[in-house]
């Protein structure tokens, strides 16, 4: 146990180990040796680490454990290592690696602990520490919560630095030149006489010496790669159609399959008649699986055609069949017994409300599909003593465990090969597709089965974003916001999600009020209450999770109060803000947008602020009320991320997040009728199209002490900024997403 305590106290330890033909650098493992997939050939008791850098005869490989979902995670992680290692990005190979418990994600747990990201007191830090340990033991190699950059920021740079210094020591030993006279650049140690020893040449020596772990990370002012525009390593492949995504991947001897599942999510299959499908061309096998059937054919299209020809007898949905039932369940949840969390209760809200002129409003946010453009897929090959899985996933360790359970094959004999994905937005935190592929493939032992969902199956069985409702009450006094009381009701996303993994949630689900309770406003009477609604349709994390609905609720109701107070929306938010770095974000969008200048007739601008995932983000949206509907003209975004590690990617991700937030707010929802999602393809779930896309100006602020990820934080302020702008232009206050239920868009 001594070891574990040490590691729990320190964040991580970087060391080295010999591997066939070379050396690997990475984080020490604290679990049993056999679990590290790249170290399988080592003897018990030998140094065991989870590698981030591997150098052997084939060259230098950087191993980047966080899945790349399109957010550029592989490139950023590789750059973090390469910065300290003194190697160019075109000199390395990037490999997502095999799942391993030492790739635990330390930043994710921070969001679950009940302290505001602005609260860096000793207490908050220490509770985060406890959560961190918990995450380690869960072995959660999870990509999510905008954590790839914060998680790797120190770990990966340290791995690069340890590798560099150890290679220098090896070069010194080999050449006799003292370490102090050696330099490193471009993947080699440079000797004073102008000659060089490449890392590849040095690897065998480096493997035999004690790693140099006493390293100091370079100051950002010395960075070569980080903080500067860099070319993503996959950009050429992604521009030439040569990058194989999960859905493109091929394995020798592979057959193609699809599934047809009860469209009432989680409902039973009572029976089916496949007589029409059985004889269709190319059909090889029809396999009943949990909640539906799998159809195996020699071609994906034939499998889908055959699946559509099967007649089913489906059981009822395990949730209310119509939307009224869902909204009613939420509406009934605002009571003391269902309080999940009240992390904020400043001043005396009840007294302030009593007898005052109370402003009240109710807000709603619908279910939403993730609908990444690539439909989900997985290839599985089951053999007696080994299973291989090829898929794009954010949770490779869970996949490994679930496959072991389903097949009876030992955990260590399940190999998960993580592939590129065409978007996720949280969809790939689920692994039903893998389980279904296993159910089919174990009936065809030795044959790799590729399961591809049709778009319709993908959208209907997408575990959607939570449905949510909020009720606000407030009082304004002397032109200022005086009292703000917000209750939010939703089912627990995290409980639904963890439930599918057989885990229960240890403690309250803070996502129910995430994006609302931790907003750094100093309102005299300020209360945020989360109510846990009963489980309804199964739900899952959707880009920015709780904040995706709550950012809208919190900011729009604040806007209503500010308008009622007769104050300026931006100035009053700034006045109320107690947190300096958040205030700077508001000031930045004010300056960028020329807040206060005259926009002309039929135009309006709205501002919104949301702190989520530790990132203070403010957005200003400008709209025109045209004869054909609302046109979104411009968006200004400022976000405080501590440090912008990759500026091009930062800009791209922020713009993408804004478009995501605006597009879904405009026109997307999943609704159930007869228990079945009514939207099954992009004609009914459109999002934003290019012609609707506003000009977007982005600024990253670097005043904070912590490095933060940017994948999710631009999403929550987008919808409220748009709603507030529509109010400014038209006088119409929209309190329900999607907004096109209430107003037309161009």
């Amino acid at each position, binding site marked *: 146990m001594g070891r574990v305590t040490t590691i729990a106290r320190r964040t991580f330890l970087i060391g080295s180990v010999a591997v066939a033909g070379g050396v690997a650098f990475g984080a020490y493992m604290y679990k049993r040796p056999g679990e590290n997939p790249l170290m399988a050939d080592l003897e018990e008791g030998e140094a065991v680490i989870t590698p981030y850098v591997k150098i052997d005869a084939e060259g230098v490989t950087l191993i980047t454990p966080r899945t790349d979902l399109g957010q550029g995670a592989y490139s950023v992680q590789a750059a973090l290592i390469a910065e300290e290692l003194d190697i160019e990005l075109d000199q390395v190979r990037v490999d997502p690696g095999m799942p391993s418990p030492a790739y635990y994600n330390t930043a994710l747990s921070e969001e679950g602990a009940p302290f505001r990201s602005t609260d860096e007191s000793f207490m908050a830090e220490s509770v985060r520490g406890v959560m961190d340990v918990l995450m380690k033991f869960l072995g959660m190699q999870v990509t999510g919560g905008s954590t790839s950059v914060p998680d790797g920021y120190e770990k990966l740079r340290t791995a690069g630095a340890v590798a560099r210094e150890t290679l220098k020591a090896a070069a010194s030993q080999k050449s006799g030149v003292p370490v102090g006279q050696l330099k490193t650049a471009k993947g080699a140690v440079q000797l004073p006489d102008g000659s060089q020893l490449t890392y590849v040449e040095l690897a065998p020596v480096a493997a035999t010496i004690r790693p140099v772990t006493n390293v100091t990370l370079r100051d950002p002012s010395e960075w070569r790669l980080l903080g500067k525009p860099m070319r993503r390593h996959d950009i050429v492949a992604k521009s030439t159609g040569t990058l194989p995504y999960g859905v493109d991947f091929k394995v020798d001897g592979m057959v*193609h399959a699809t599934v047809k599942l009860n469209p009432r999510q989680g409902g039973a299959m009572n029976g089916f008649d496949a007589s029409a499908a059985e004889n269709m061309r190319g059909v090889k096998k029809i396999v009943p699986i949990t909640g539906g059937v799998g159809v195996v054919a020699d071609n994906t299209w034939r499998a889908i055609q055959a699946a559509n020809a099967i007649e089913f007898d489906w059981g009822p949905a395990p949730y209310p069949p119509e939307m009224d039932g869902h909204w009613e369940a939420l509406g009934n949840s605002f009571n003391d017994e269902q309080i999940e969390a009240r992390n904020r209760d400043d001043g005396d809200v009840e007294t302030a409300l009593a007898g005052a002129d109370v402003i009240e409003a109710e807000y709603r946010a619908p279910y939403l599909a993730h609908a990444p*453009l690539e439909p989900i897929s997985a290839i599985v090959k089951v053999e007696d003593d080994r299973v291989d899985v090829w898929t794009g996933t954010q949770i490779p360790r869970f996949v490994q465990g679930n496959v072991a359970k389903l097949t009876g094959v030992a955990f260590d004999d399940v190999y998960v090969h993580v592939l590129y994905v065409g978007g996720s937005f949280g969809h790939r935190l689920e692994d039903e597709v893998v389980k279904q592929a296993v159910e089919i493939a174990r009936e065809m032992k030795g044959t790799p089965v590729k399961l591809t969902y049709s778009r319709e199956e993908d959208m209907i069985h997408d575990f959607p974003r939570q449905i949510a409702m909020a009720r606000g009450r407030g009082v304004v006094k002397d032109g200022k916001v005086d009292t703000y009381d917000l209750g939010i009701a939703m089912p627990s996303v995290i409980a639904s999600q963890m439930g599918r993994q057989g885990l229960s949630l240890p403690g309250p689900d803070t996502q129910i009020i995430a994006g609302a309770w931790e907003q750094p406003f100093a309102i005299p009477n300020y209360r945020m209450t989360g109510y846990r609604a009963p489980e309804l349709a199964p739900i899952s994390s959707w880009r920015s999770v709780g904040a995706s609905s709550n950012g809208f609720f919190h900011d729009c109701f604040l806007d209503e109060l500010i308008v009622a107070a007769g104050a300026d929306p931006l100035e009053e938010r700034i006045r109320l803000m107690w947190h300096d770095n958040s205030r700077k974000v508001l000031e930045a969008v004010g300056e960028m947008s020329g807040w206060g200048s005259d926009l002309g007739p039929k135009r309006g601008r709205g501002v919104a602020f949301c702190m989520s995932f530790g990132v203070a983000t403010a957005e200003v949206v400008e709209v025109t009320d045209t004869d054909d509907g609302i046109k979104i003209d411009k968006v200004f975004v400022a976000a405080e991320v501590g440090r912008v590690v990759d500026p091009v990617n930062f800009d791209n991700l922020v713009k993408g997040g804004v478009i995501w937030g605006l597009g879904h707010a405009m026109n997307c929802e999943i609704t159930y009728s007869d228990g079945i999602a009514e939207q099954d393809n992009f004609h009914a779930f459109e999002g934003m199209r290019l012609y609707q896309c506003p000009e977007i100006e982005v600024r990253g602020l670097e005043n904070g002490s912590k490095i933060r990820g940017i994948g999710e934080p631009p999403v929550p302020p987008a919808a409220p900024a748009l709603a507030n702008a529509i109010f400014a232009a038209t006088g119409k206050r929209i309190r329900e997403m999607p907004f096109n239920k209430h107003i037309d868009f161009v």
Partner: protein
Amino acid sequence: MKLTVNGQDHEVDVEEDMPLLWVLRDELGITGPKYGCGIAQCGACTVHVDGVAVRSCQLPVGAVEYEVTTIEGLGTPDALHAVQAAWVEHQVAQCGYCQSGQIMAAASFLETNDDPTDADIDVAMSANLCRCGTYPRIREAVKTAAKNLRSA
């Protein structure tokens, strides 16, 4: 039946009504064209037939009379087409899944209009969905590609 793709002749034994997309992907192993919706809503499957952008998920292979070009035939990593070069320069892709279709749509459009206005670009490129929201960079890249094509 016979099919010419990227200058190469193929003999395929499939149903006439199988969409070209699936013949390319599953029969010929050409996976640059992507499956996104199957109902002409997203454009991920865009290829050129006789130089014109079409939705290969909607085109029965039996109806294909002319040569097919996919993203793989437009240009290669070593010899990028002007549109692909612009896409690389602007680092358009996020997940990249829609980009084969975006690039094929842009290449065909710029053949007919090499000096497009912003409004022209909006019209030409709005049938292609990007869930990652790369639209601002697509606009920039189309303009750069147009400029480079004009001066070529």
